[in-house]
């Protein structure tokens, strides 16, 4: 466990000795702020219009602002995930520092967990920047905080799953660009797998649809903690890290 933390803190620090960490935080905060503003603006417009026409408008911040906001941000996360994971192993392989890690008295799984945890924490920090937006929402609105917390848990879980896949892909190449592009491709595919269920209801379509990460986020966005979705994300995390471990082991045979 100590070794996991040693690796993790080194990785976290390396995000912030280069501009990449700050870039990710700032970009995420900007985009989150933009969606926050547009979602809120839209609801306010609709409310005013309803008032002018004399119809009551059911005001529910959780359902009308937070749910679409988190769903949008969850899609945006897709673009950030590869930037977080692409360097994790590819960079170590290119510069030869992987030899230092692999010849130190540290288990492979500790290296992998440390790196993955650093990626998850990095994403967690990005999510933290959205606290500013929620300060306003809680000050001027009256949303229920529980669905918000569950929505954030869902974002973190799903990011954990995609980051595990990105970590695995990063062990396959020395080239960060390739690792990043491949991670983006795979994650995108996992997002759109459930589109097939819109026009097909066969077993295959259902299986594909189940494998889509997007389909497992909606209940989180609504503020419902469904164990089925949580189990899905945890399974993907486990599989991603398992494949990373196998890939690292194969390095010892091929180099």
């Amino acid at each position: 466990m100590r070794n996991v933390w040693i690796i993790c803190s080194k990785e976290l620090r390396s995000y912030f000795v280069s501009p990449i960490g700050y870039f990710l935080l700032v970009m995420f905060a900007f985009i989150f702020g933009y969606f926050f503003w547009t979602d809120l603006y839209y609801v306010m417009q609709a409310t005013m219009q309803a008032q002018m026409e004399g119809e009551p408008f059911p005001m529910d911040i959780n359902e009308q602002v937070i749910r679409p906001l988190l769903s949008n941000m969850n899609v945006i996360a897709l673009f950030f995930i590869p930037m977080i994971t692409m360097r994790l192993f590819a960079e170590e392989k290119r510069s030869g520092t992987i030899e230092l890690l692999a010849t130190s008295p540290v288990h492979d799984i500790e290296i992998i967990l440390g790196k993955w945890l650093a990626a998850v924490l990095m994403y967690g920090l990005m999510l933290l920047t959205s606290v500013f937006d929620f300060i306003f929402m809680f000050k001027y609105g009256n949303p229920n905080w529980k669905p918000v917390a569950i929505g954030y848990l869902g974002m973190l879980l799903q990011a954990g799953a995609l980051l595990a896949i990105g970590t695995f892909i990063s062990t396959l190449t020395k080239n960060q660009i390739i690792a990043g592009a491949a991670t983006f491709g795979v994650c995108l595919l996992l997002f759109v797998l459930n589109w097939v269920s819109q026009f097909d209801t066969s077993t295959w379509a259902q299986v594909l649809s189940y494998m889509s990460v997007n389909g497992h986020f909606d209940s989180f966005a609504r503020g419902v903690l469904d164990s089925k979705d949580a189990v899905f994300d945890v399974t993907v995390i486990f599989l991603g890290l398992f494949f990373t471990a196998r890939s690292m082991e194969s390095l010892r045979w091929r180099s």
Partner: protein
Amino acid sequence: MITVQGLTKRYAHNTAVDQISFEVQKGQIVGFLGPNGAGKTTTMRMLTCFLTPSGGTASVAGFDILEQPFEVKKRIGYLPETPPVYPEMRIAEYLMFVGRLKGLTGSDLRSRVDYSCERCAIADVKDKIIGKLSKGYRQRVGLAQAIIHNPGVLILDEPTAGLDPKQINETRDLIKSLAGDHTIILSTHILPEVSQTCEQVIIINKGKVVATDSVGNLQGRARSGESVLLEIGGRNGSLDPKAVQRKLEQVAGVTRVAFKEDGQRRAVFEVEGRKDRSLRGDLARAVVESGWDLNELRAASMSLEEVFLQLTGEETPAEMAGVAAGGQS
């Protein structure tokens, strides 16, 4: 300290290391010598548990690299061919990280970082960013990283590659000064490096050990006897090589006379004799007293380069010159 038995590494299409066996005693500096691509790096990577061997095994400090890699890793300091440094880190920060990774904690960690910096002469630059250091400094950081947990065994892969002559000397001195506390294996393709730094030499070529010997013996093998080249000319236009050969063989101390080439009124011989004799003087006198001209007489003792080339079966003299030039410092 290190025992290697039948270590083998096969890839899909070639065998990089083929049944290597050798032993290294505690406290020795051993040179791992061979042309590029001979399997030096692969062997070292297997010893450090970075690569898994396809066959055979090895033990380091009594621990098997396959059975107890964790114990082996604790006892080995490894400097790969390119120092495994993170360019964005500062030296002290990097060494703290490596120290923690090797299991050091607290005041022990800090004192070892200071010690390694002191030892590798980087104490005055330890707050610099590694990416901005010169190659020589980076190499020293690599060495500091290797000795940080005070390992019993140091494995250094071409520690002087890419350095300028001054840095090469400094690095060699540093390695020599480390020898008392650590058993060291260093790989190189530069011959003078071996004779200047190492006590024992393991020569490998095409994945096989071709010689294991002490530097003294190897040089002895090179100069076991004195070998002299003689060019002899005939006075009156005629020269009977057979007569010359007979005469030379009669000189005291001569063990072998080989007729090399024949020209017009001249002949070249290679004469080998025991080292302790004043061979050249006797040969010169014998030639002159027989009425022949002594056109040339020079020592032709085998250099370490020639022994190396003989053992590794390399033939191109150009390559040999390159090897020798690479080692000039």
